[in-house]
């Protein structure tokens, strides 16, 4: 139906914009998700994840731009039963059993999967006869997952599906999600857990301040912000000239140890060897945490009236001045709270 040859993508956003009063929740999102992909929408709270998902599901209309599912308006796909969703704010539906609820939802779809199969995939087959409002938080979450997949939709959308799950429940959940994705379905989930996005998605879309600031596999994102970290002891020598070594993108000193972010660790290490500077050398891949922090470092002020100015999506130069105290797992705390400022600033205080 659209300009593309062959089948239209499962999801397509073209310049979608959505504001609520002075809050510019989504500021021009372009994205395409092909059929069969598993994609993570990664961003901190308030970055625009839920609004993007509302637009995608047709729950909200964009102010500008367009949103299409399977080459048509979202409503058409929803009505045709091509979409299943686990919404973030959903709570337990009172006074129904798990089986009644899932059976009811499955019955709305043209080609649902057998209810027993849906319960099994969601790992709640043994809870079928229980009342939904008498389950634990993790169990309720899995019921909502069963509700999302009961209709066997081609596209399943999960808005922060593992919020409020403990580690074990989280693993069980992702195992279920993977089995579903393996059936050839398109999966889009939002999360602010980096490791989840890295581990379970084929592709990660990083959203910040209402914009997609990065799009790629976890590997690509890590590489984009400087593939690896090279750390070594200064052993009394100065740091002068280290930034100029081949591959080096930024430099960070902690005590007597220096950490170089580099996009070519081999060249950097070779050059260091030439300087006879190798003391306690360590080469490690950049973590996705760091990639994420760099990508979203200053843009986190999404709710600013008037909107944050657009940021260059991938900006190692911004990090070059940093002498950040944020270490090995920088800024995890900053990702959880409704932090409105870059976690770097928050932490440095």
């Amino acid at each position, binding site marked *: 139906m659209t300009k593309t040859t062959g089948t239209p993508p499962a999801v397509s956003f073209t310049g979608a914009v959505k504001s609520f009063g002075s809050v510019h929740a989504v500021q021009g999102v372009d994205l395409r998700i092909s059929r069969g992909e598993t994609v993570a929408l990664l961003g901190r709270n308030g970055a625009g994840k839920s609004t993007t998902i509302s637009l995608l*599901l047709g*729950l*909200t209309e964009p102010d500008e731009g367009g949103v299409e599912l399977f080459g048509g308006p979202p409503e058409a796909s*929803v*009505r*045709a*039963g091509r*979409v*299943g*969703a686990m*919404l973030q*704010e*959903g*709570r*337990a*539906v*009172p*006074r*129904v059993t798990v089986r*009644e*609820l899932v059976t*009811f*939802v499955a*019955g*709305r*779809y*043209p080609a649902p999967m057998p209810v027993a199969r849906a319960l099994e995939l969601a790992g709640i087959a043994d809870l079928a006869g229980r009342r939904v409002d008498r389950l634990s938080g993790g169990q309720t979450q899995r019921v909502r997952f069963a*509700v999302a997949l009961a*209709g066997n939709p081609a596209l399943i*959308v999960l808005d922060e599906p593992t919020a409020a799950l403990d580690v074990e429940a989280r693993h069980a959940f992702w195992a279920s999600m993977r089995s579903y994705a393996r059936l050839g379905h398109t999966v889009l989930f939002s999360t602010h857990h980096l490791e989840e996005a890295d581990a379970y998605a084929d592709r990660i879309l990083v959203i910040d301040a209402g914009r997609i600031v990065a799009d790629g596999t976890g590997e690509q994102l890590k590489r984009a912000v400087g593939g690896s970290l090279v750390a070594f002891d200064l052993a009394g020598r100065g740091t002068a000239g280290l930034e100029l070594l081949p591959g080096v993108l930024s430099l960070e000193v902690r005590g007597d140890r220096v950490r170089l972010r580099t996009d070519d660790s081999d060249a950097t290490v070779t050059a260091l060897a030439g300087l006879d500077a190798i003391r306690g050398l360590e080469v490690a891949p950049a973590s996705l945490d760091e990639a994420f922090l760099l990508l979203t470092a200053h843009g986190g002020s999404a709710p600013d009236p008037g909107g944050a100015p657009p940021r260059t999506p991938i900006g190692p130069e911004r990090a070059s001045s940093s002498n950040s105290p944020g270490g090995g797992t920088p800024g995890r705390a900053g990702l959880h709270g409704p932090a409105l400022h870059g976690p770097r600033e928050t932490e440095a205080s």
Partner: protein
Amino acid sequence: MLDYLRLEVRRTLRDAGFVIGGIAMPVLMYLLFTHLGADDGGWKTGAMVGMAGYGAVGCALNTGGGVAEDRAIGWLRQLRVTPMTPRQVVIGRTLTGSVTVLPAIVAVLVAGGLLNGVRLDAWQWATIALLLWLGSVPFTLLGLGNGYRLSGQTTGVANMACNLGLAVLGGLWFPVTLFPDWLRTLSGYTPTYRFAQLGTSVAAGHAPAPGALAVLTLWLLAFGSYAVLSYRRSAGNI
């Protein structure tokens, strides 16, 4: 749609508050009110219709409480991402209201016939039940209007206030003959008085007065518009 109706009726009947407040209470109040003080025979029949009406109004309004609850927990939003259309959801909810008023009506009529010795012809029983059932639609719409407009807790309070206020004003609890003149005049304009009148006319052996139908129709339109406006206002953020 039928599945949705079945699901929601089931959920309503599992609500202990609904069963006690909506069905048991009117029966108990009916038995209590008809065994206090002198009885002139007509009161048992009048109170039967009044309490059946009171129960029906309570159950009809309760539908709105269900809507408010479902909005709060995100269930209505979840339904929006299934192939169900919003229209089907609203119609399903209205039908749920129509179904869930039946137990209250039947329970009070049965109490009248079996326990209080009210004697009516078969056609009168059937017609009273039918008219009270149909006549409860405006109250379902009032409840839906509250449920789509107000938060869960406020809906509960608003429904309670509507229920008690309209029941007392409309003479469902005490006959309006006990009211002072001005209140009786006012009562004539309430939907509840006219609603009960549908039943009392039939119990007295004649068709409902045109006035009753006219006033009730006006309320039907008013509450219907209220429900539509409330729904439209909230539809975007369900």
